[in-house]
Every structure is written in C-alpha cells, then in structure tokens.
C-alpha cells in the first residue's frame, strides 16, 4: 500500500468554462420590458424593480434615499402597517435599496404567494402617499441612526472620502450632514418621486422559478398602467474632480484609526477595467492579498484590510480601507504605500499571478451559482447597456493577461501623488 505523502497537493484544474443561465426578454401589454432568468429547484422568486432614481438625480442631499425608504410607509389604500403586514403574512420580503445610480425595490416570495403580495407591491410603486406623519417619524429615527454612525471611525472615513475625490458639487460627491435632515421637505420627496419613479424609467428583473404564469401575474398588476416618459435628469457637474489631498480627522480616545486611500478610477466601460480588477485583487482584493499578508498576517496591525474598485455609471473609484490600532497608524500607512509602490514598479511574479487568476475564475464561477446570483450579474452589466459578453471577455482577459501588461497599468494608475488619503482617529 502506498504511503500517503501529505506534502504533495492533489491535482487540480483551472475553471474551464462557466455556464450562464439564459436571460430572456418579454414585454408587458403596455410595453414595459421584463428580463427573466429561470432556474433553481426551489419554488421561490425574486423580483427587482430598478429605477434610475439614485443620488445622481437628486438636487438636495438625502432626497433619493428618503424617497426610496418612504414609499413603503403608506399608500393610497394601505397604511404603513397594512403594507408590512400584507407582505409579512405571506412570508415574503420586500426590501428597498438606494445607491448612487439607481434605487431598487426587491420582492422575495414563494411562487405560491406571488398573487397575494403583488397588490401591495403595486401600490408602493405606483401610489405612495408620503404623509407628513410618516415623514416626521422617518426623519426622527433616521437622525438617531445617523448620529450613531457619526461615532464610527469607518463611517466618517467613508463619508469624507467620496467628497474628497469627487467634490461636493459632483453628483457622486455630495456628503450628508446632520443639518441636511432638517432641510429635507416632503415636497422635495414628492417631486423626486414624480420625476423619477415612473414605470418607463424602471427595469424589471425576475429570477427563480419563472414561468408564463409569473409573467401573466406581473402583467395583471403592471401591464395596464400607463407609462410616462422619464423626466429624470442628472443634477450637478459630472466633469468635476478634486486634486488629491490628505485629510486627518482626529477622534479623541479612538482605539483604532480608520484609513481610506484611493482615487477616481475607470469604470466598467473602460478598456483598462479588467486589468485593474486583476491588479486590485493582487493588492487587496482577497484574503491572500499583499495588503492582508503584510499588514494583518505579518504585522498584526489590523483585523482586516482590503481594497476594491467600484464601478458607477459615470465614473468609478478605487479604495483601500482598514481600521488599525491607533498606536500603529503611521506604520500601517507606510506599509500600505510600500505595497502600492511595488505594484507600480515590479512585475508580479508568475506564480502569484497564476494563483490570482485561478482564484478569480473560481470566484466568478461561484457568482454564477443559481438564478438569484445570475440576476445580480446580469443587472450589474445591463445598466451599462452591456450583456454576458462582458463576463466572457473578462474570463478571456484573466486567462491571457501578462505581468508586463499589469505593470504598465500599475505605473499608469497607482501613482502615490494621485491618491487621496483619509485618516480618522489618531496619527
């Protein structure tokens, strides 16, 4: 019998191909487009109503997110309580989410209860009431939450960062201050709703156990409604960008400092995007990244450090984020810049790049697992007018990219003099 040699790793293979679940298109009677992905073994559904109604379209701070959240708090025929109860009693979940570009309402339900919960969904989307009473409760509680967030060093660093890289007047750069809550009016919210939340400005994505009946049910509730042309317009100047800067906010008694370093970056529509994603993974995009290895696993300065690239419709940004012991803030900064400098001056060793490529392909395979994940993948490119080819192209570039190409990208995008640095806590 062979003795097992535990020092030798089992054979493995790189992920060869990834199966994407098909996205199908159909139209409701009034012309609303519905994308759907059928799959999975459970009798469950997820329906996203994605509106072009993110912060990008607001004239005043907080308006987009407040509108999004207040829609559920009372409609023409149902009180806030009746809506929650109506959804809850069928075990469904109805969630809202606001981001820079879009605002989304998402329903999760068992297929057998779809017909019972859609009346509430329809009212929330088409006939929200925005009463003074609900607005006051919402505002008061939101201020409380905001005050608590202001005590968190990571929250402060994140908030400061967006303004620092884009500027206060840029649609992505506006920051929230406590006073903004007092200046928010119900009229702002009603106006924002009227301008942005019409079905002509909405993308519906259905995933899970989808069949003809599902589409028929959606048609019954949304197919007869008139759809108006969207009047939403981007507010603010997209061309604005600030010069790199360093901001330090001292927080007395802080045991840890939050660090955020980054810059404006290309988004998904740019040819360098994929290469930069690979570089980002090497630097701080996974557990074995260089930043994790150095600052956590070698020095023990932090519980975690990571970096990421966030793509928005009209720009993107790159950021490194961590919380470190306040006694080692300066040392951690030095090490972070050391790693950035290596990215722009030294070719990534072949073996490390091979590992990162395999890792990224494995993660992509995982992110395609099941209809809900697939719907997210689709949504993430559909809003840019792209399709699954984006991912096929991504796979191809991951497989083919060389250390030389990555070094050129590193030199171009990771210059310290282009980076903005925020520290909240103690230096």
């Amino acid at each position: 019998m062979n003795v097992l040699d535990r020092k030798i790793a089992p054979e493995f293979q790189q992920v060869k191909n990834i199966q994407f679940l098909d996205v199908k298109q159909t139209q409701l009677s009034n012309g609303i487009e519905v994308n759907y992905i059928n799959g999975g073994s459970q009798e469950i559904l997820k329906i996203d109503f994605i509106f072009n109604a993110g912060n990008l379209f607001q004239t005043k701070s907080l308006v987009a997110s407040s509108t999004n959240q207040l829609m559920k708090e009372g409609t023409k025929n149902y009180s806030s309580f009746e809506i929650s109860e109506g959804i809850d009693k069928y075990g469904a979940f109805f969630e809202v989410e606001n981001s820079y570009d879009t605002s989304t309402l998402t329903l999760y339900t068992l297929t057998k209860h779809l017909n019972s919960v859609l009346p509430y969904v329809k009212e929330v989307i088409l006939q929200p009431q925005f009463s003074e009473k609900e607005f006051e409760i919402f505002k008061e509680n939101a201020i409380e939450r905001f005050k608590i967030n202001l005590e968190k060093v990571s929250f402060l660093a994140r908030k400061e960062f967006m303004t620092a890289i884009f500027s206060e007047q840029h649609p992505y750069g506006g920051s929230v201050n406590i006073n903004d809550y007092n200046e928010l009016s119900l009229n702002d919210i009603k106006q924002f709703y009227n301008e942005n939340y019409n079905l002509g400005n909405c993308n519906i994505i259905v995933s899970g156990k989808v069949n003809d009946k599902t589409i028929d049910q959606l048609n019954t509730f949304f197919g007869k409604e008139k759809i108006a042309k969207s009047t939403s317009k981007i507010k603010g100047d997209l061309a604005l960008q600030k010069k790199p800067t360093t901001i330090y906010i001292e927080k007395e008694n802080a045991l840890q400092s939050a660090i955020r370093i980054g810059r404006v970056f290309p988004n998904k529509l740019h040819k360098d995007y994929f290469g930069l994603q690979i570089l980002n993974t090497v630097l701080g995009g996974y557990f074995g990244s260089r930043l994790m290895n150095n600052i956590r696993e070698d020095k023990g300065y932090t519980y975690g450090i990571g970096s990421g690239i966030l793509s928005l419709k009209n720009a993107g940004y790159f950021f490194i984020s961590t919380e470190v012991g306040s006694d080692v803030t300066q040392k951690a900064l030095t090490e972070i810049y050391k790693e950035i400098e290596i990215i722009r001056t030294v070719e990534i060793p072949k073996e490390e790049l091979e590992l990162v490529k395999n890792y990224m392909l494995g993660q992509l395979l995982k992110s395609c697992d099941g209809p809900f994940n697939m719907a997210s993948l689709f949504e993430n490119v559909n809003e840019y007018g792209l399709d699954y080819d984006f991912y096929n192209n991504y796979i191809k570039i991951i497989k083919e990219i060389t250390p030389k190409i990555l070094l050129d990208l590193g030199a171009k995008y990771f210059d310290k003099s282009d980076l903005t640095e925020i520290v909240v806590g103690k230096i």
Partner: protein
Amino acid sequence: MINFEKFTLKNGLKVIVHKDESTPIVAFNLLYNVGARDENENQTGFAHLFEHLMFGGSVNIPNFDEPLQKVGGTNNAFTSNDITNYYITLPKDNLETAFWLDSDRMLSLAFTNKSLEVQRNVVIEEFKQNYLNQPYGDVWLLLRPLAYQKHPYKWATIGKEISHIENATMDDVKAFFYKHYLPNNAILTIAGNVETAKIKELCEKWFENIPSGKTTERSLPKEPIQTEERRLKVERDVPANAIYKAYKMCDKKHQDYFTTDLLSDILALGKSSRLYKSLVKDQKLFSEISAFISGSFDNGLLTISGKLLDGISFEDAEQSILNELKIIKSESIKSEELTKVKNKIESTSKFSETSVLNKAMNLSFAELLGDANDVNLEVDKYQKISANDIKRVANEVLLESNCSTLIYSKKS
C-alpha cells in the same frame, strides 16, 4: 427537503453527504465540537484565538489559504460559545484540495511562534474594532456576566478581557489542540454535485488514518435558576440611550425552543410586529426596537433591546415594553398573527436552501445536536405551535424575576 447520506469513519469522524446537482460549487464544512463555553475562566477567548491559529500552517503544509486560492476556492471560519466551524467553497473538480488541507490541520498544526504572536495582535485588533471602538460595542461584555453567574456563557467568544489573549502561550495552544481537535470530536459535511462513494473514498484516503483521541464528557457548571431581577446601569459616550432586557429561556433541544423563537418574532420581527408598531410608530418612544433569541445550545436568552428617542425617560421606555409583555401574557394571540410568523419561518427556510453552504452548515449543526435529519422536521415543528403554547411560554419566560436589564445611558 434536504436528502443526505451519513457514515462514520473508523476513527470516529462523522461524515454527511448531500447531493445537489444544480451547482458547480461544492461546500465543505468541518465542525469541531468545541466553543468558548469549553474555556477555562482565566483563559477566555481561547477557542476563538485558536480558530485564527488554524490558518497559520499545518504539519505538512506551510500555508492554508494559498493552495486553496490557487484552485479557485475560498474559506472562512467562526467560533461561537458552543462550536467552532470551518468552511470552504470551491469548484467541484478541485474538491480533493479541501480534503488535503483540512485533514492535515486535523492531523497537526505547524505551531509556529510567529503565527501565535501575529494572531494575538490580530485578535486584539478584532476586539477593539468590534467591541471597544464601536458605539454600544461592549453591550454583550456587560450583559453576559449579568445574566449568567455560573455557566461559561458569562463570557463572550472574543474573551472577557484583552489580557487573556495577550497571555496565551504556545503550551496552551498545543494542549487545546490535542484535547479538542480530534476526528471523533468533529462532523464533516459535503454538499454539492458529488457521489457518496467518491466522498467515502476521499475520506478514507485523507482522514481515516488520523488517530482518534479521548474525549471527555462535557460537564459545565449549571446556571442556577434566577429568582430575582438583575439590573446594571452604565454611562458611555454614545448619542442615544439604550435598554437591553435579557430573559432566560430553555436550551436548544427543549421542545419550547421553537415556541420561544416564534414568541420573539411576534414581539419584534419586522415592521408589522407588536413592539415596532406600538413603541416606534404609535407611541414614538424608541427609534429602533428588536427581540431575538441567542440560539445557544445550553439555556439561552431572549433579549429585547431598543434605542430611546431623545427626551424619553428610561422609566417610561421600560414600562412601555412591560405593558406589551403583559398583553402577550394575558391575551391569546390571533391565529392570523401566528400564521404570519410561521409563514416567515417557512419562506426563510426555503430561501436558505438555495445555498449549498447553508445546507451543509445546517446539517452539521443538527447532527451535533442529535440528528442531521432534524433540519427537515424543523418547519413542521414550528407549524404545530399553538396560540396557547405562545401564551404559556410567554408567562414562563417574560418575568422580571427572570430578567437581566442593562441600562445603557449616554453621558450627561
């Protein structure tokens, strides 16, 4: 319904296999029957620190993460008061890598001083990040020792204090490993598009020659029955006053466990719940309110917590909670309200079954508590609960003599 097969290796390692053909990903979940409750009171936080050390290289493999990432996999772990759970997801074709890596660290660790030194620091930073440098972060460091006087649930998984982590030695680490990290003290669950015969083969190859060890019957100090209400008031630099009321409840194997869970859902799950409607919306006393059970294996806690709105006194806020509890103890709940929380349980269970990792974890936990098949009976157990059961348990649990109250006050 989660179908599975189960077998036990000669060294006592229990293995569960669940086949799910719909996914290219396999979940590999290895649960060790050891948690913070097994720690020495003067060395708390050790089970969790040890979990970190499990990533510091094993006897034949210097690095755990790298080879896994190289085959497209990812992993993590968590420690609770009851268990330590390690999990990997990876492309199906590369499953053997998970067997190779996790069997080697079950065999023995590298035990390097560097790893211990660094992970001590990492865990101390974790302590600061999640418990000390966050508003309300120390709540459970205060509430646990108030609610538990004898049972080891009186300390949090992160540990009682930072010094316990600072003082951990390599000898402690080794002793802990040899006592608890045994094949006969673990449950391995594989979920994905796999064949049991193949899994058996891999288990025999990688795990079966790891020697079993002597496990000792767990004999934890039993928490005496609480007979008087307990209160603690602290002042902290936070923007809002908060109140926490922790009521003792049954253990996880007790038949009332699910009833207590539903009771907490009726009280505060979502915006249609009683406490939210009454205290946040109608009376405007709290900016947020919640109720939840700890889910622990031994006698647990049903905790009600809320943040008070500006200008509301602790007395009025607490009285408003007590008024709601009085109603649920004296009036039978309507069947629609009961159906509502039961339906939520049913759909939550359906949605969680879309992930092989969730399924693998749930099978492992259920097996440790008695039988993996209990995952398939749970929803039914909830369905059978009656309005009378809810009322009875409310009357048994929601008593002030059974409660520990933490008044968390902002600095005046």
